[in-house]
């Protein structure tokens, strides 16, 4: 019999707040951080995104050898650890880090040398963060495009379920710099305004900065906490930069997650969608949700609050949804007015009071990757 995996503690560090409570409070009040910026260091044109104040320092000055990316990871982990007695130095505790681009912004400021390349390597950041807290095990690093955050939760839950570790500190972060912004711009994937997930007039995504941490454990003393009930990953095998035409593959990941959780589709109370507000992603997701029989389930996308926070997105959106289970309040989808996908879906437009027991979180990304995870009481 496999063990249950419980959510012990969490943190969201975003421009909206430095704790999960602060973030949830801002979202209840319908506050978004997505706004227009002009910063020649990031783009010669103005852009619409959610980013931290340029001069903000997260970790105090005697530790300035940490880059912004590492400071985000450290600050988020630090806050999540405050509310638990989990011992990071225990061999039964593993650190899992999710990021798409980590320290890539260093390329922009420094000369490309072998030393710089080593400094950019995600394993360098992982080691520094692990040493800072005293983790004993070598951290696990996941870099799998925009499903990295959801995949890191799934990977963590599996390593706990098969008994290899008892606790997992799962953290994700990404920093928006000219490298990332120019790339999304070249795809013409960016919206000049706050994005409109699933809407008829949606015209692209917003990028966002943030970090988030979820601490998982199989320790029975947390058995009244919310659990990771199931998760799965699939590949479209269709195109490296465009999603599946049918949504069949994301639907397969959703169905596998339900199967692992031992649930039928009607046991899902709400969905936290990927909902990037690009025309193709949202259409594919709507297809997948229909194929899995979830079209009437209330659904939100939080991208209008945070933008797309890349390697942190799956974590931030899962944590907000966990908070929704705890506070019996499911958040709406800023930017959405009129459905603009070809299949019916039930997009939440006003905060929804609901004694929800379980939710589904989905994510998809470049390389044709899809992931789904189910949390519940």
């Amino acid at each position, binding site marked *: 019999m496999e063990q249950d995996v419980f959510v012990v503690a969490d943190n969201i560090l975003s421009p909206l707040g430095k704790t999960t409570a602060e973030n949830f409070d801002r979202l209840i009040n319908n506050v978004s951080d997505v706004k227009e910026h002009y910063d020649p260091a990031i783009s010669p044109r103005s852009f619409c995104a959610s980013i931290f104040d340029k001069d903000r320092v997260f970790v105090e000055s005697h530790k300035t050898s940490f880059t912004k990316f590492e400071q985000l990871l450290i600050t988020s982990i630090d806050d999540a650890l405050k509310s638990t007695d989990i011992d990071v130095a225990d061999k039964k505790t593993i650190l899992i880090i999710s990021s798409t681009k980590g320290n890539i912004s260093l390329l922009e400021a420094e000369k490309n040398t072998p030393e710089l390349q080593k400094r950019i390597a995600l*394993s360098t950041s992982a080691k520094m963060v692990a040493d800072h807290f005293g983790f004993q095990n070598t951290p696990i690093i996941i870099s799998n495009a925009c499903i990295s955050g959801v995949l890191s939760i799934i990977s963590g839950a599996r390593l706990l379920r098969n008994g290899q570790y008892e606790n997992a500190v799962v953290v994700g972060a990404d920093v928006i710099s000219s490298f990332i912004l120019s790339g999304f711009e*070249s795809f013409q994937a960016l919206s000049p305004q706050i994005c409109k997930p699933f809407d008829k007039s949606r015209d692209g995504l917003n990028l966002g900065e943030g970090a988030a941490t979820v601490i998982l454990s199989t320790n029975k003393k947390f058995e009244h906490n919310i659990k990771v009930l199931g998760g*799965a990953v699939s*590949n479209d095998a269709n195109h490296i930069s465009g999603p599946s035409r049918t949504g069949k593959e994301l639907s397969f990941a959703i169905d596998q997650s339900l199967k692992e959780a031992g649930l039928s589709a009607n046991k899902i109370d709400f969905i936290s969608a990927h909902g990037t507000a690009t025309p193709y992603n949202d259409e594919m997701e709507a297809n997948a949700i229909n194929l899995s029989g979830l079209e009437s389930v209330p659904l939100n996308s939080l991208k209008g609050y945070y933008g797309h926070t890349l390697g942190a997105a799956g974590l931030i959106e899962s944590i907000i949804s966990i908070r929704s289970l705890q506070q019996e309040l499911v958040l709406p989808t800023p930017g959405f007015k009129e459905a603009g996908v070809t299949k019916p879906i039930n997009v939440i437009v006003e905060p929804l009071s609901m004694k929800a027991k379980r939710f589904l979180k989905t994510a998809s990304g470049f390389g044709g990757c899809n992931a789904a995870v189910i949390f519940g009481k």
Partner: protein
Amino acid sequence: MLTKNHIISSCVIEVGSIFKNGESLFQNKSADLSGFLLSVYQHFQLNYPKYYKMDNLSKLGWLASEILLKDSYQKDQYQPEEVGLVLTNRNSSLDNDIKYFESAKEIASPSLFVYTLPNIVIGEICIRNNFKGEHAFYIQEMFDADFVTVQVNYLLDNNILKTCICGWVDVLDQDYKAALFLVERQQTDNSVPFSTKSINNIFETN
């Protein structure tokens, strides 16, 4: 660590040489990486126009997967969802990141930007073979046979996958190495038990 899974085939590509199941199949030590990869593509008479638009990481991983699977993988035995990949490397997509960043100083190219993610090589192998199952890309300083074994055994033992391609694909400038393993639950005549020790041996001894 004992396991009931089996290595059906392996393919290692490094320093201008290609080994399948420990046997040397091809050598070309005179070319740079791009030239070497093209010579491999030509030597094995591959015909896949998408190859030419890939970055070097995807080319290396894709070529290794072609050689790994040829005459070893029974395509008709599996559903697309039953086949997956677990890949690892040290340098993520940094080789192409540097190229993208240099080009973006002039004009940012979406066809270069899409390769600034390490998991694109997984996507390319999935597209080629219609693999739709579980997959993941992990970054590790060194090849960690223990970690890979645990991940793959979990997927196979829990019936999430029936067959899994796993291993290491890393490129940074002229340094490169690929070591892929086709792992299945069914034993075959020439298969080797899948273990930390066996994949480490194959990784290191060529």
